[in-house]
Each structure stands twice: as structure tokens, then as C-alpha cells.
């Protein structure tokens, strides 16, 4: 028997269709999702090991550098991956990607006039430790304009991709920075229905983890769906 997951609270997540985020209008399914009982097909998932990644992968200041360090505020992003039962998720893959300090992505589809930084790729990955902790070193991304309304700007953000142990726990989200006035104006942020949900995506400055004369730290925890504890659940073979 394989552990079931807690029901995903769809009212806590953004709805598929959020009109203020125009791209969602033609890409949101209209039919209701089909609720499936959990089975091996989605309650299992891929696992990764230290052979899969290198030590430098989590250092965005050095993992792409050609001639020196990238331009920008040096920062440390760290935190824990937990589940809804507040248990750490160990040994799980965390991947991030972001714009450079000027708000430009190294991607053929990004035509923003801010320059590419020759020393910044913009991606990193790591595995959590036994207590679910992860840490990246990077530069703080800049805000950037995008085509939604005439004058839409994304707050500075870092994209996070997290696995857990089940394919149905798979999650992509974005991390914002404490104090950014653009958070309250962003039509992607505001797809999240509850202010407490938005607050959950805002990293807090962490002086205790800050490296003096080197890099300011921000702390950001990610919560994945939890497993249901089922000591009294009726099971087919027991009935």
C-alpha cells in the first residue's frame, strides 16, 4: 500500500483562469478537473542523487561565469522544503531560474532592452539535506516590464521548481523579496486568491545568515503537499 496525499486545496492556489493575467485566458482548461484516487502512477515519483549534480550547480555567481563575477547584489537564498505536516523533505531536487540584475533573462524569447550579463546564466539546482535545507548563492534579480497591460512590471522574483517524493507533489512557484512595492501591483501575484498565500511566497531578509562584507541572505521555505496518515483507514483486503 502506498501513502496517499492530502487533498490539494485548489482555493489556495491560483485558479486556472485569472483574467488579469491575460495569457491564462486562452490556456486555462474550462472543464472541471477529474478527481482521481491516488495510485502508483502519481504517488510515486523520480528521485535524484548526488551523482546527478555538481557542487557548483547551486552557485549562480560562479556556475556560468566567464570573465568574472556577474553584476548585481550578491545574495544567499536559503530555507527548507517541508510538507503540510511540517516534516522536512530530505534529498529532494530544488531548481531555480531568474533574470539578471538588470531584469533580463538569458533566453531567446526575451527582448527586453536591459543587457545580458556575460557572466550570468540564471539557473541553479541542489538537493536538500537530511533536514530539508537548501542554499543557493546568486545575485538579486531586477524587476522587468512585460506585455500584459500597457505598463506591467514583474516584481523581482526567483522561480522555484520542487519535486517531493510523488509526481502529484510536483510544484513550480515564484519567490518574491520582502519590501518590493511591485508585489502588490503584479497581475501574476494577484492570481493567488488569499493575501496569506501571497505572503507565503515573500522571502524575508535574514541577518543571521548574512555574510558580513559579502552577501545578504534571504530565507524562503517551500511547503509541498503532505501525506495523509491513515491508521484506521479501511483497506480493500481488510473488508
Amino acid at each position, binding site marked *: 500500500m502506498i501513502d496517499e496525499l*492530502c487533498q490539494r486545496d485548489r482555493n489556495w492556489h*491560483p485558479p486556472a483562469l485569472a483574467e488579469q493575467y491575460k495569457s491564462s485566458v486562452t490556456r486555462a482548461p474550462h472543464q472541471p478537473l*477529474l478527481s482521481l484516487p491516488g*495510485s*502508483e502512477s502519481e504517488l510515486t515519483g523520480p528521485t535524484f542523487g548526488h551523482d546527478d549534480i555538481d557542487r557548483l550547480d547551486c552557485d549562480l555567481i560562479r556556475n556560468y561565469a566567464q570573465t568574472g563575477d556577474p553584476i548585481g547584489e550578491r545574495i544567499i537564498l536559503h530555507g527548507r522544503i517541508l510538507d503540510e*505536516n511540517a516534516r522536512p523533505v530530505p534529498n529532494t531536487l530544488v531548481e531555480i531560474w531568474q533574470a539578471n540584475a538588470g531584469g533580463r533573462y538569458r533566453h531567446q*524569447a526575451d527582448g527586453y532592452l536591459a543587457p545580458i550579463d556575460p557572466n550570468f546564466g540564471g*539557473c541553479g539546482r541542489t538537493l536538500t539535506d537530511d533536514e530539508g535545507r537548501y542554499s543557493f548563492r546568486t545575485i538579486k534579480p531586477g524587476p522587468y516590464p512585460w506585455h500584459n497591460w500597457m505598463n506591467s512590471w514583474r516584481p523581482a522574483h526567483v522561480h522555484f521548481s520542487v519535486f517531493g517524493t510523488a509526481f502529484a507533489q*510536483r510544484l513550480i512557484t515564484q519567490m518574491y523579496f520582502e519590501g518590493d512595492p511591485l508585489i502588490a501591483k503584479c497581475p501574476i501575484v494577484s492570481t493567488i486568491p488569499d493575501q496569506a498565500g501571497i505572503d507565503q511566497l515573500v522571502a524575508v531578509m535574514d541577518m543571521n545568515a548574512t555574510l558580513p562584507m559579502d552577501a545578504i541572505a534571504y530565507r524562503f521555505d517551500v511547503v509541498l503537499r503532505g501525506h495523509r496518515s491513515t491508521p484506521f483507514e479501511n483497506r*480493500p483486503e481488510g473488508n
Partner: protein
Amino acid sequence: MAQRLDYLKESPSQTAGPYVHIGLAPSDARIDVYRRELGRDIVGPDAEGERITVTGQLFDGLGEPVKDALIEIWQADAQGEYPGKEDNGFCGWGRVVPDFDTGLFSFQTIKPGAVKAHNGQLAAPHLSFWLVARGINIGLQTRMYFGDEEKANVSDPVLNLIPEARRNTLIAKSDGTSYRFDIRLQGDDETVFFDI
């Protein structure tokens, strides 16, 4: 007031955006950064089973191909076992990036065996799909079944939850060892997506 439950809330999803490839498939964004990218070979070099090719496209509500998506696949091996129980070198997980100009995707894998369904019966062979893109606020989960597994499909407990008119949206057309699986985000033939 009652006592308070102390569960945490799952972090809310946010769209993967149009630059998801930088993070999850950097070489597709022409970023040479990792010694080895993950998910580039779904089955591993030594996997047993019938080698197959799956091609398809994602379409939006206007019928336009979606050209900035990223798809992940999760599947059982040819015996219907998911990776993790024994280390036989089978990976079972991979990432697929549709072509930036056409939205066409194509990947090679092996055909999985029948796996256990939630009720202990056998499920028809299938691949689990998870897809993200700009405009998709939370990753979409679906499955691809095989058009040449008619008998197994008829008794599959998940396909049987779906009204007959929409069941075919999850069944790939077969042509020998090639399969065609198109995914429609909206419209008359909207693909069935799951809440699991």
C-alpha cells in the same frame, strides 16, 4: 473557538512563465551550465521493452500551438513497475521541450506494462504527463493511454471515470511503434486533466 490545526499550507503555485527552459532544460535556452541535464533520457540506455516514439502538440483555446511549454513524463517499466523498488537502471522520468517554432514535441521511450490501479485492479498501460507554460497558473496533470491497447483501455478504472465523449482525449493514435498525442487546453476536444 476550537483548537487550531497546525498543518502548514502548501505553497501556492505560480506560472512557470515563458523562460522555464532556463531552469529545467537550460541547453534549450542555449545555456551550457551543467555537466549533465536531468530528464534527457526517459528510460536509460539498458531498459528492456518495446521502443516507441511519441509526438504531439499542445493547443490553446484559439487552436494555436503552444510553443513555450515544458512537459514532464513519469512512467512504469515494461513490467509495470515504477522505479524505486529495485535499482535496475530504469529511470522512468523525463523532460520534453516542444519546438520553439512549431510547438511540436517528440520523445523516445519504452512502452510501459500494465500497472496497479488504486483499487488493486490492473490499469491499462499509460504515461503520466505534467505540463507547465506561460499562462498556466498551476501545472496540469494528465495521462496518455495507447490506441493499440483497446482491450486494456476498456477496463481501465480511470478511463471509465470519464464520460465516453471525452475519453479519447487521453488515447494516443498508434501507427506501429509511433504514437500521436495532442493536448488541447480548451475547446470541444479539451483534454481531460486530473486533480490527484
